[in-house]
């Protein structure tokens, strides 16, 4: 009986640690907006936003706000934008407007000084992400590989 009690105690402890890591730790994950970041309207410098890390690529959907990195430089470690296209979608720029599968994407500002381009079939393992001014997004850097996505923003301004 004592042995069963002993092992039940250990099992309970393991379950508690697992639940803490899976459910509690992600709630504490937040990402701060860098001081000079201005590519997404509404974000406040130094403000922290909830970040869901470890989201499986298949769970990312068009319309999700994401935080991503675009290189090793400090100013490219935390960039923000919305996913507008997933692998298999066709992205094009027509008349300065970003179109996905022929439909207008919900992009605030047009792409300036860009002749009609595309369509591009978004490759496997990539997502097309746009921000407000297209300086640090897929329009400027191309479709982002999943490795560049730091996590999904659980709240947006």
């Amino acid at each position: 009986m004592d042995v069963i009690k002993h092992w039940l105690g250990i099992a309970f402890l393991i379950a508690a640690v697992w639940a803490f890591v899976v459910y509690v730790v992600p709630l504490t994950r937040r990402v701060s907006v860098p001081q000079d970041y201005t590519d997404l309207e509404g974000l406040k410098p130094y403000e922290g936003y909830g970040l869901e890390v470890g989201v499986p690529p298949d769970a990312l959907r068009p319309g999700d706000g994401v935080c991503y990195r675009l290189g090793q430089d400090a100013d490219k470690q935390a960039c923000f934008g919305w996913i507008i296209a997933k692998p298999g979608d066709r992205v094009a720029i027509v008349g300065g407007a970003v179109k996905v599968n022929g439909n207008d994407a919900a992009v605030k500002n047009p792409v300036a000084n860009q002749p009609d381009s595309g369509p591009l079939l978004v490759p496997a393992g990539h997502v097309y992400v746009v921000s407000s001014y297209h300086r640090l997004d897929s329009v400027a850097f191309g479709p982002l590989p999943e490795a560049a996505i730091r996590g999904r923003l659980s709240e947006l301004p």
Partner: protein
Amino acid sequence: MNGKPGVSGKPGVSGKPVMNGKPGATSKPGVSKPSAASKPGTLADEAMSRLRLGNWLSLSWGAVQLIAAGVLIVIGVGFTWSGIQRWRAGNALDHATVLRLGGNRSAAQMSARDARDLMPSLPATVLAASDLASAEITTDLDLLAQRCPVADRAAVGAARGINAVLLGKPLPDGIPDADLAWFKAATADKPKLPTGEDQPFAATLTVTLPRLLAAAWRTGDRALLSDSAGALVLLQPRHPQRNELQLVLAALDAKWDKAKLLQVAKAITDAPRREALLGRLAAIAPDRAEVIASVAAAGTVAGRLDTGASANDPLALRVKNAAGRSPAERETLARHCLERGRAELARQLHDALPQEFQARLRVALLSAEGRLIQLAEDQKPEHQPRVSAPVNDLGLLSFHLSNRLGTIPTDPVVVRVDGVPVAPADINRQGTLVVATLPPKTGVAPMIQILLGTRSVFSGEVKP
């Protein structure tokens, strides 16, 4: 205890055999007939032997447990170490991806090689660190395809397809359908952009789109030229030849008037190159020929379309006034110039920097200037020049010449056909693409030798 043996009645105290509680009762042979059970020491021996048996079992079981525990510890340590290595390799691969995205290809290659060293059995690390344009990797890829897990088969298949396309070999089996459609399109006589919904790998698009673009450029297929250039601009907005791609798209876009087209043309500072591009575009799009010709004429009158004058060029002004700055500041400014595509300004700053700072800028500057020969001097694999399989078609010999970092070479290229050099005027270069007009009396399978400066980068027969 009186000190006399057997008096206490406690067996064995006297050290003599004890029977029936009477010490010494059997000590005198012949007094009573001894039974088998009462032989001296028999019971004790049996008890001891049982005790020894018990000990032996305990020892054996203990040894088995120890061995099992040892094996489990070894397995556990191995498992843990493998997990750590796998995690580090995954991190290094992610790091390489992000570095490549940021444009730091050299560091990305190093990180990919680190990942392969950590986990050489993982297909993802092997593919990331491999040079798919190399003929030496073909056998490794074939072996990898045989032993890779099911989840990685598509990636390995696509890599084999890329290797075959880059080397001009027949496509192997096992390529995913989505990628196969692109490879077939890129190698077809009459190429056409695939329309399927299945998504190919990004590497497949990176390899096939420039080939489709080159085919469209050669054949004058306007629709294919527009589609492939547009897709390439969206896939790689920071492509080394983005200015040329933008010019192609702007020239073919009916909504772009002369003023806007001129603006795009300004970005190409090499006047002969710009004029050659505009001339070809005018031939491909006759309805836009007038606008394109007016832009070309404006370029001829103005000489260089971009003014380059310091007064109108804040970056040149900053370089001019940088003399009093510290070496670190000048190095930062030089890197900024390189990012803005102003290698000539970066060169000015570089030449005035101390030796140690010059060494740090060397690779970036030589890459920007396209000095492949000087870059290759450090013997690093990623800096060595490499050439794609030459294509002999319609009396033209075309091939791409670059290195693993995608540097566009500016060093002189010599093409020898059956030992006779092609005249420099018959060699046209567009970025990494080199097109040489073959002499009229060239045989069916001429012996081609390609030299970068004095270094031979290709030698062999090239059939049409």
